[in-house]
């Protein structure tokens, strides 16, 4: 027993693998998880595959094709159709709202996070606690007053109606992520720069910003996804098609097309393209960004 364990231990180290003592059990414990892993793959991926394959079917084939097989006459016609239906405008609206919102969130959050983590007094800590409470406020609970306020500000049915509350709800988590990161920048570096006569703005620019880059990337990715996919604010705060953003556009395509499922699914796929590209080219950052606030 002792000898065989030692031998196995040596073998293990070579293979970098965890193996139970018995060889036969070993095989089963590799097969069973693998089988479940493949089943879960099917559950996860088949709806997405169906979405993609159907979006390539001509409408006539949609009624006759076998739905789980690849399209018999694949075509991009649905995509062309969707693109001709103001999709470009909705896309541009969404880009505008997302870029401006994320920019505002990041800029105001980095200044606040610097003050909270590097200037520790009663005021900044109270402010921090106030933001932490904000994490618990469901956005849905404030939508009625926000609607009334946006109307009073004459911003109803504009893209700014989406940006202002969107920024407000993006700030608490962004500050939490940035504060936990900036806190860990060694105090000595900060203090020595301060004693050298550097202003806070210079310290922020030349010390804190470069060192907190990973946290900034996390915040940018997380907020981009949040704003890009946001549905309730546009549903309540906009109405006209010229200020429509993508999630709302999907919803209205559904109303227009009803039975033209391939066209709807082409729109669904198109609406996610930026995030899909982000995943293909920056999977690690994207996945890290999704767990923002819980990863550090």
């Amino acid at each position: 027993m002792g000898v065989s364990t030692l031998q196995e231990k040596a073998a293990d180290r070579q293979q970098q693998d965890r193996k139970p003592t018995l060889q036969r059990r070993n095989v089963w414990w590799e097969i069973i998880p693998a089988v479940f892993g493949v089943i879960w793959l099917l559950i996860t991926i088949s709806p997405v595959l169906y979405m993609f394959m159907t979006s390539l079917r001509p409408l006539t084939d949609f009624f006759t094709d076998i739905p789980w097989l690849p399209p018999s006459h694949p075509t991009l016609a649905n995509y062309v159709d969707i693109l001709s239906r103001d999709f470009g405008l909705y896309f541009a609206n969404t880009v505008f709202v997302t870029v401006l919102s994320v920019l505002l969130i990041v800029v105001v959050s980095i200044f606040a996070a610097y003050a909270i983590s590097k200037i520790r007094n009663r005021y900044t800590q109270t402010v921090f606690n106030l933001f932490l409470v904000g994490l618990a406020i469901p956005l849905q609970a404030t939508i009625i007053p926000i609607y009334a306020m946006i109307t009073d500000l004459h911003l109803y049915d504009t893209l700014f109606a989406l940006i202002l509350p969107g920024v407000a709800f993006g700030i608490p988590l962004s500050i939490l992520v940035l504060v936990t990161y900036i806190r860990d920048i060694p105090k000595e570096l900060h203090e020595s720069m301060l004693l050298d006569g550097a202003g806070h703005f210079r310290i922020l620019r030349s010390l804190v910003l470069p060192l907190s880059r990973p946290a900034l990337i996390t915040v940018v990715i997380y907020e981009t996804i949040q704003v890009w996919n946001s549905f309730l604010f546009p549903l309540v705060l906009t109405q006209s098609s010229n200020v429509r953003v993508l999630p709302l556009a999907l919803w209205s395509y559904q109303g227009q097309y009803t039975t033209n499922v391939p066209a709807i699914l082409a729109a669904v796929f198109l609406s996610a393209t930026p995030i899909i590209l982000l995943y293909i080219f920056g999977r690690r950052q994207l996945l890290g960004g999704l767990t923002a606030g819980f990863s550090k």
Partner: protein
Amino acid sequence: MSTAIQAPQAPRLANVSERANQVAILWTLPALAFYILFAIIPLFIAVYLSFTNWNGLSDATWIGLKNWIALFSDSVTGHALLLTIGVMIISWIVQTPLSLLIGVFMAGQQRYRSVLSVFYFVPLLFSAVAIGLTWVSILDPNFGLLDTLLKTIGLASLAKGWLGDPNLAFFVVMAIICWEFIPFHALLYLGGARQIPRELYEAARIDGAGPVQNLFLITIPQLKYTIVTSTTLMFTGSLTYFDLFWVTTQGGPGYATRVLPLHMYITAFQNEQIGYGSALAVLLAFFGIVLSIVLLRFTGFTRMASQREGL
């Protein structure tokens, strides 16, 4: 000598701290302004509106506790509340074990597992609206993938309008919610599982422990902070599921899937009972804040939030 050095420094330090106070106020101001204006003040306005009768056009009239009395005697609201609690419980029971197992599975060293995990995260790339529309087409009774499949394999009797059946619709939407969110929670568990020291498994193996024992005696206890994080997010998240319910069922058939946020939206914006809708919104916020405080108290969420579990 030492006094000579201290003398010029004292005023400089005072200067520094005064400047720091200015910076503290000035630099937190923009974030605070946005946040107070569009998150805190609306919450208080919602409380105020919950004591009024308002259709959104004429002036709001103060009606005291009438909305609140109505809220506690309204059977639809009671039903919506129960559904929301149902969302929490089902989310937790279904998602926690699956996410944990998938997370641990992905944390394995085997090459095929990292290949599989690339695909496991794909649902995270789509918005709730996109996911809702995709599933609506899959579950369509006429040309949907699921019913066509059932008819082909000889189970035509099971085929039905999944989202149109009042007894089923809620559970079907719950299944979609689990499909949507398990990848996210599995990601949390993946991060947690990677932090477990390998030596623990080495030691267990020498003691002759099998994989099942490893799971229950090492992996799950070691993941306790991740379980708390994931549970907290599931519970508080359960209060906010609006998009998916809206796109798939709009609360129907009847009231079968009208969860609290949906009930609030329909009451305020479709039935134009803004006062009563605000009472529901306050109930929702109250729920969210109390839930967070309770979970924080009993689990030390903050301690755990700062624990490193990143990728």
